[in-house]
């Protein structure tokens, strides 16, 4: 397999890399508000990319993201007074990785909607355990988290975006990525051509959980105080799914664009019209799912195709009706 430069495909990687590099200079001129918004956007990008990395090709829709982000929150909550930020991210990632591996080994035998329901319940389960722990054992609600500064959090998020992008691109082109796609296309066929389906699924699920855990750890340092409700938040579980649907699921750019548009929309609605923010947000989501089932990237591709078709019609070479 010789690598050929494909303009349409590879230009998107270059553009994304350029944007990431541009972001590195934002703290030099951006306000605190800009930095916080950018950090949120980047967190959402990591979440939607890592979610789509596993759920996109395999078709196993996970709603456990809230549990992994929450574990990252609590890794920071427990350890922020004694460890530097990179260590907190590593711990948050590893704990999430471990939970995903254990849960995956048990539940990835479940197919389709059963897996989704289980992961949905997982978030509530972890939240309940943490609440019980705080009420019964330590008798103190929530934890305080050390703030490492807006700039530090910003750069930590940026590093995670870069790492996630690399992981996603590498996996997409690797044998492992092909195995994940094979499982999504036909799990039976995949297992009978020598793919270790269980191990592939568990590992893919755990890697995506690791990435979510790391950004959770960073996010917590931006919040000063965390508790089980804010950490193991169902919103974090639905966000990646919605962002991927919004942006376009099976494309590289879809989850990134979806996350960015989503975060900006969320922030501007909250600041402009806080009373009816949820109503408008919900309406936009419903409209998006109804009218853009293939997401923003899908709409873009349809428009491009229509323009191309229009052009060829004028040239008299249209054979679409033939």
């Amino acid at each position, binding site marked *: *397999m010789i690598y050929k430069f494909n303009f349409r495909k590879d230009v998107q990687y270059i553009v994304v890399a350029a944007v990431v590099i541009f972001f590195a200079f934002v703290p030099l001129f951006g306000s605190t508000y800009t930095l916080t918004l950018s950090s949120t956007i980047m967190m959402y990008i990591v979440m939607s990319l890592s979610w789509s990395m596993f759920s996109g090709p395999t078709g196993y829709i996970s709603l456990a993201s809230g549990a992994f982000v929450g574990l990252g929150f609590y890794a920071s909550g427990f350890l922020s007074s004694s460890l530097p930020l990179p260590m907190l991210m590593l711990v948050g990632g590893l704990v999430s990785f471990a939970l995903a591996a254990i849960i995956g080994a048990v539940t990835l035998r479940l197919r389709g909607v059963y897996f989704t329901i289980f992961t949905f319940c997982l978030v509530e389960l972890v939240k309940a355990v943490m609440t019980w722990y705080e009420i019964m054992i330590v008798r103190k609600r929530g934890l305080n988290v050390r703030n490492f500064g807006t700039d530090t959090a910003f750069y930590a998020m940026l590093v995670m975006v870069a790492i996630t992008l690399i992981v996603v691109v590498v996996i997409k082109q690797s*044998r492992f990525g092909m195995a994940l796609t094979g499982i999504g*296309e*036909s799990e*039976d066929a995949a*297992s*009978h*051509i020598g793919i270790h389906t*269980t191990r592939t699924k568990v590992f893919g699920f755990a890697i995506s959980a690791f990435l979510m855990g790391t950004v959770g750890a960073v996010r917590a340092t931006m919040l000063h105080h965390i508790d089980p409700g804010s950490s193991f938040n169902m919103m974090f579980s639905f966000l990646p799914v919605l962002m991927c649907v919004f942006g376009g699921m099976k494309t590289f750019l879809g989850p990134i664009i979806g996350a960015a548009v989503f975060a900006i929309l969320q922030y501007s609605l909250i600041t402009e019209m806080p009373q009816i923010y949820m109503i408008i947000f919900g309406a936009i989501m419903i409209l998006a799912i109804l009218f853009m089932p293939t997401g923003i990237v899908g709409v873009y591709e349809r428009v491009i195709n229509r323009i191309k078709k229009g052009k060829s019609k004028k040239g008299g070479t249209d054979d679409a009706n033939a």
Partner: protein
Amino acid sequence: MPMLEATGISKAFGGLAAVSKVDISVNEGEILGLIGPNGAGKTTLFNLISGAIQMDSGTAVFEGKRISGMKPYQICRLGIGRSFQAAKNFDGMPVHQNVLMGALFGKKGQSAANASKIVDEVLDFVNLNELRDKMVHDIPLASQKRLEVARALATRPKLLLLDEMMAGLNPSEVGEAMELVTKIRDSGITIIMIEHVMKAIMKICDRIVVLHHGAKIAEGAPQEIAANKTVIEVYLGEC
């Protein structure tokens, strides 16, 4: 010693015995036919041999290694390939990539260069080279069934399990499929095939096993089976 020897294998779903105490063996270089009315347990038997489901009792030994209890991917890597009754291709991929999947994962540590060589060979072998860049749902049923076989062949099996590869094909396509099966055997691969197309079974099989209600009711050369009274009763009803 037979290449594959399964003794006393049983499988029940709930209270229903899908396969009960079946002995089946296949010798190297043979084409073994597996027939029986609908619901006789033929596909279940394939699922048991290939590891898709675990047997309740009995053992299966392939080339001296016990394969009962192994996972499908392990059994595949030992050299047992299979195709599915309803084609289970990777619909989102072009034809050549379907075959590449088999070549890449079929043997541990297969290099990419080697795998793409296997893809060319196999596509040539099953006559799908012209369709190699087409998507799966754009090619005719007969070709989709061939692709099933191609994907299994790309894993470099020694034994191939073919599940009704001729169902739904027209007579000329059946002829081509029969040619393909013979060609696969001549290339040194042993075959067990489930088939309802009697013309094909009688012509190309060396030996036939008949299943009914999960049990083996007859075994022998095609002529013997065609003359067997129990088999005729099972197929045509008691007269």
